[in-house]
C-alpha cells in the first residue's frame, strides 16, 4: 500500500506546484495587465486615499481637501470656486479632472515620480508620496478685476505679463463652482447634468478653449505684417485706399463705420479702425506674408500648452484675395482665443517677442522642495523691434485719441485696440466686443501687463456693443490691478 500512498502524495505535490505556478502567473507575470484594467478601482482608491496637493495663487491655496470618510476618501474643496474655475478646473471622483487639476494631476495626486525623494527605492517600497503643490502665475487682484468686470455678462479675459509670458488672469463667465463636482454622491451627478444642460456652458473655459472672430482687434496683426513687409513705411502717409473698397475679384463693396477713411494714413486708420485700409493692406502683403506673420503671433498652433492645451486660433492658409481682405480685418474664418489676442498685445508691448504663455510658476513637493520651475521661453519673434515700437505708438494713439479712450489710466502708458466682430448668418448674431491692450507704468522699463477681453453679451443692445464701450473698461480694471 505504501507505494500507492507515495504516489498519492506525489499527486498532492503536483497540486501544490500547480497552485504556486498559477500564483506566480497572476501575481507577477500578468499583474501589470490586471493593474491596468480599467475596471480595477485600486488606482482610484489609492489616489483618493490622501489629501490632494493644492493649487496656489499669490502663495495662498485656492483649493483644499475634505475627508469624506468614504472609500474614495479625500474630496476636493475650492475656496473661491467660480473665480478660479477657469484656472483650476475641477477634480471629481466621478468625472475626473480638468484644466490645471488635469494637467498637473500627477503632482497633485502624488503619483509624479519627481516627488519621490529617493526615486528607485520608492519604486520598490511602493511608498505613496503626499501630493505636491502647484504655484500658479495668477495675480489675485487681476483675476478678481477680470471676473468682477465681466460680471453677469458672457465673456472672457486673458492677461499675460509681456516680458515673461506669465498668465496673470484667466477668467470666463458664466462660471461654475467646482466644489459641486468634487466627491461622489448623487449631488455631484445632478450638478454635472445641470451644468451641462442648456446653452450657458459654464464649464467652457472661454479664455483658453473658445475661439471667437477677432474683428478689428486683428488689425494689429495686419499692421505688423504691413510694416514688416514694408507695404507702409510712413505711419502718417496717405494710403491710396478708396472707401468703400471693392473686394478683389468681386463686386462686394466693403464700407467703414468710421469717417475719414478714404486714403487715410495708417495711424488714422488704426485709431478709428478703418476696415477698407486694412483689407487692402492685407491683400497688398499677400497670403504668404499674412500667414507668416499670423503664425509668428501664434495662430495655427495646435500645440500651445499652458500646461492645458489651448484651442487653436486660425488664420486660413488657403484663400482668394477677397477672403484674404476680409481675414485681414479679423473676419471671414479668422478666429482667435482670448489668450491668443492677449499674446498679440503682449508681442507689441514686448518689442515683438512672443513669450510662451504659462500658468504654472513652479511645482513643490509636500516638504517644500521645488520639484520644477517654469522658465520663460520665447515662442517666436512676431515682428521686428522697429515695427513693434511703431505699433506701440499706434496702440497708444487708440487710447489717447481713438476708439479706446475708456482704457486710459493715469500714471501709465496704455496701448489698445478695439474690435467689434460680427458673426452668424448675414451677421445677424449679436456681435462680440473685443478690446486688447497693454499697460506700462510711467518710468518703468518693462510693460506690466497685456490683456484681451471679449464680451459676447446677448442681452445688450446691439448698438451698444463695441470694443470701446463694453470691453475696454474691463481691460482697464485688469490693467490697473496688475499695475498696482
Amino acid at each position: 500500500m505504501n507505494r500507492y500512498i507515495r504516489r498519492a502524495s506525489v499527486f498532492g505535490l503536483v497540486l501544490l506546484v500547480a497552485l504556486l505556478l498559477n500564483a506566480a502567473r497572476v501575481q507577477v507575470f500578468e499583474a501589470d495587465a490586471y493593474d491596468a484594467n480599467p475596471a480595477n478601482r485600486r488606482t482610484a482608491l489609492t489616489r483618493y486615499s490622501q489629501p490632494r496637493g493644492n493649487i496656489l495663487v499669490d502663495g495662498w491655496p485656492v483649493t483644499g481637501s475634505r475627508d469624506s470618510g468614504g472609500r474614495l476618501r479625500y474630496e476636493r474643496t475650492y475656496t473661491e470656486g467660480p473665480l478660479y474655475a477657469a484656472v483650476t478646473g475641477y477634480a471629481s471622483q466621478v468625472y475626473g479632472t480638468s484644466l490645471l487639476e488635469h494637467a498637473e494631476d500627477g503632482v497633485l495626486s502624488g503619483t509624479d515620480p519627481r516627488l519621490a525623494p529617493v526615486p528607485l527605492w520608492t519604486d520598490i517600497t511602493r511608498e505613496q508620496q503626499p501630493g505636491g503643490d502647484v504655484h500658479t502665475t495668477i495675480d489675485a487682484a487681476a483675476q478678481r478685476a477680470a471676473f468682477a468686470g465681466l460680471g453677469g455678462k458672457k465673456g472672457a479675459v486673458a492677461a499675460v505679463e509681456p516680458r515673461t509670458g506669465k498668465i496673470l488672469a484667466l477668467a470666463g463667465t458664466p462660471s461654475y463652482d467646482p466644489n459641486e463636482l468634487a466627491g461622489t454622491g448623487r449631488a455631484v451627478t445632478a450638478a454635472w447634468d445641470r451644468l451641462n444642460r442648456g446653452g450657458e456652458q459654464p464649464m467652457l473655459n472661454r479664455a483658453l478653449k473658445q475661439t471667437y472672430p477677432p474683428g478689428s482687434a486683428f488689425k494689429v496683426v495686419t499692421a505688423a505684417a504691413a510694416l514688416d513687409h514694408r507695404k507702409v513705411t510712413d505711419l502718417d502717409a496717405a494710403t491710396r485706399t478708396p472707401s468703400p473698397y471693392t473686394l478683389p475679384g468681386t463686386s462686394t463693396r466693403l464700407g467703414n463705420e468710421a469717417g475719414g477713411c478714404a486714403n487715410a494714413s495708417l495711424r488714422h486708420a488704426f485709431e478709428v479702425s478703418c476696415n477698407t485700409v486694412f483689407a487692402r493692406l492685407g491683400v497688398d502683403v499677400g497670403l504668404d506674408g499674412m500667414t507668416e506673420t499670423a503664425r509668428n503671433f501664434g495662430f495655427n498652433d495646435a500645440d500651445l500648452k499652458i500646461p492645458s492645451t489651448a484651442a487653436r486660433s486660425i488664420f486660413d492658409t488657403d484663400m482668394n484675395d477677397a477672403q484674404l481682405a476680409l481675414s485681414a480685418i479679423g473676419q471671414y474664418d479668422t478666429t482667435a482665443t482670448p489668450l491668443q489676442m492677449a499674446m498679440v498685445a503682449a508681442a507689441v508691448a514686448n518689442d515683438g517677442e512672443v513669450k510662451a504663455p504659462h500658468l504654472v510658476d513652479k511645482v513643490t513637493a509636500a516638504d517644500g522642495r521645488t520639484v520644477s520651475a517654469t522658465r520663460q521661453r520665447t515662442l517666436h519673434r512676431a515682428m521686428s523691434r522697429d515695427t513693434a515700437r511703431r505699433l506701440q505708438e499706434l496702440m497708444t494713439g487708440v487710447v489717447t485719441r481713438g476708439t479706446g479712450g475708456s482704457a486710459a489710466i493715469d500714471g501709465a502708458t496704455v496701448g489698445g485696440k478695439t474690435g467689434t466682430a460680427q458673426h452668424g448668418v448675414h451677421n445677424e448674431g449679436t456681435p462680440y466686443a473685443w478690446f486688447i491692450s497693454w499697460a506700462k507704468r510711467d518710468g518703468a522699463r518693462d510693460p506690466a501687463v497685456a490683456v484681451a477681453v471679449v464680451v459676447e453679451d446677448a442681452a445688450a443692445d446691439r448698438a451698444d456693443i463695441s470694443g470701446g464701450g463694453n470691453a475696454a473698461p474691463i481691460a482697464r480694471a485688469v490693467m490697473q490691478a496688475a499695475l498696482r
Partner: protein
Amino acid sequence: MTATTADAPPPGLRLPRRRGTELVLLVGAVLISVYGYIDVGLARQSAVPGDAVSYGAGLGALALLGHLAVRFRAPYADPLLLPIAVLLNGLGLVLIFRLDLETPRNQAAPTQLVWSALGVALFAAVVLLLRDHRVLQRYAYVSVAAGLALMIVPIFFPAVNGAKIWIRVAGFSFQPGEFAKILLTVFFAAYLAANRNALTHVGRRMWRYQFPTGRVLGPILTIWLISVGVLVLERDLGTSLLFFGVFVVLLYVATGRTGWIAMGLLLAAAGAAAVGSLEPHVHSRVSDWLHPFASIDAGRGAGQLAQSLFAFAAGGMLGTGLGEGHSALIGFAMKSDFILATFGEELGLVGLTVLFLLYALLVARGYRAGLALRDPFGRLLAVGLASLLAIQVFVIAGGVMGLIPLTGMAMPFLAQGGSSVVTNWIIVALLIRISDSARRPAPPAAEAGVIAAAHPGGRSGASAGPYGEEDTPYWSGYGFGPGGGKERER
C-alpha cells in the same frame, strides 16, 4: 522487499516524542498571529489594537489546551500538526478582523473566535476520548448514515446564495455538509480497508481487466451516487468534487489499480459535462472561469472573480502589507470563499507561497502518518483526511485564482465559517491520533506483526492494540471480507 518491512518501523528504534518542539512551535505560531494582529492595527489605526493582549492570550490558551491534550493522550503525535493548525487559525482570525474593518456593521471575527474555541475544545475532546482510531472502523455504517442524513437535512431549509447547504436555526447558521466530509471519509476508509482484496482480486475478468462483483461495488457506488446526487440538488459542487476526489484517491491507494483512477476521471468528465450543460449555476461558474472579464466588457463592472484576480495582482511579489490592500472590493464572500485574495493582496506571492507550504506540510504529515501506520483502516483514514485537506485547498485556491472553475468552499482554518473551522480541528485531532499510533514504539505484540505477511488475510499490524481487525466484525456479515490467498501489497 516484503510489505511488512516497508510498513513497520524498524523494531527497537525509540522515536523521540518531540512535545517540547511542539510547544516551541506553538509559541511561534501564536506570536506570529499576534504580530499580524498588531500590524493590522498599526496600518489601519496607527495604534496597537487595544485587545491585542487578549487576542494573544486567547489564542495562546487555545494552543495550550490543545498541547496539553496531545501531551497527555497522544504523546508520540507528530509535533508539526498542532502548531500549523494554530498558525492557520490565528492568521485566519487576523484576516477576518482586518476585513471586519471594512464592514463596521458586520463583525465576523468575534463569532469566528468562538467557533475556533469550540473547534479546539472538540479537538481536545477527540484526542482525549478517542483512545484508538480503529474504534471508528466499527462505526463505518453509522458514519455513512449520519453523513448522508447531515447532507440531506439542508434540502428542507431555504437556499442561501444559490446553495442549499445551510441550516439556520434562531440566527445560528450551520453547514452540516462539513461534518459529513469526515464521516464519509471514515466510511470510505473502513469499507475499502475491509474490501480492498475483494475489489482487487474477486470478480469477473474481462479481457485484461478485472471487474469487481456487484456485491462489492454496489454499496460504495450507491452511497457515492446518493451523496453526489444530494450535493447537486443542493448546488454545493465544491463538496461534491471533494468527495469524489477523496473517494478516487482512497480507491487507488486501497487497490493499487490505476484503472480505478481512469474510470473515476471518466465518470468525473461525464458528470462534469452533464452538470455543466444542464445546471445553470455550474454553467455560469464555468463561463466565469473562461471569461473572467466578460462582465467588464459588457459594461457591468468587474465580477467577483475579476476582483479577486485584481487583488492578487495588486499584491505582486511582496504584497501591500496587512491592512493596506483593497480586497474589500470583492464584497460578498470576501471573508469566506475569497479570503485568500486578501492574503494574496496584502502578503504577496511570498506570503501565499508560505501559506501553501504550510498546508502542504500539514498534508504531508498526514500522508507520513499513513505510511508509518500498520493497519489498513488507519492508513486509508490518514490518507483520506490528508487528501481532504489537499483537495479542498487546491479547489478553493485554484478557484479564486482562476486556475479552475470556482466552486464555493472554505479555505481550511483561514476562512470565516464555524462548521468549517470545527470540522478542520476534528480532522487535525484525528491526524494527531493516527500519527500518535504511527510513531508510538511498537509494543512487543506488534513486533510480531513482522510475521503478518505469512498470516492468512495479511492483517499486518492488526494484532496491535486492543481493537484488532478481529474485533471489528462489521463486514463479516457481508461475506466479502478479506478473502483467502496471499496478501499482496503491490
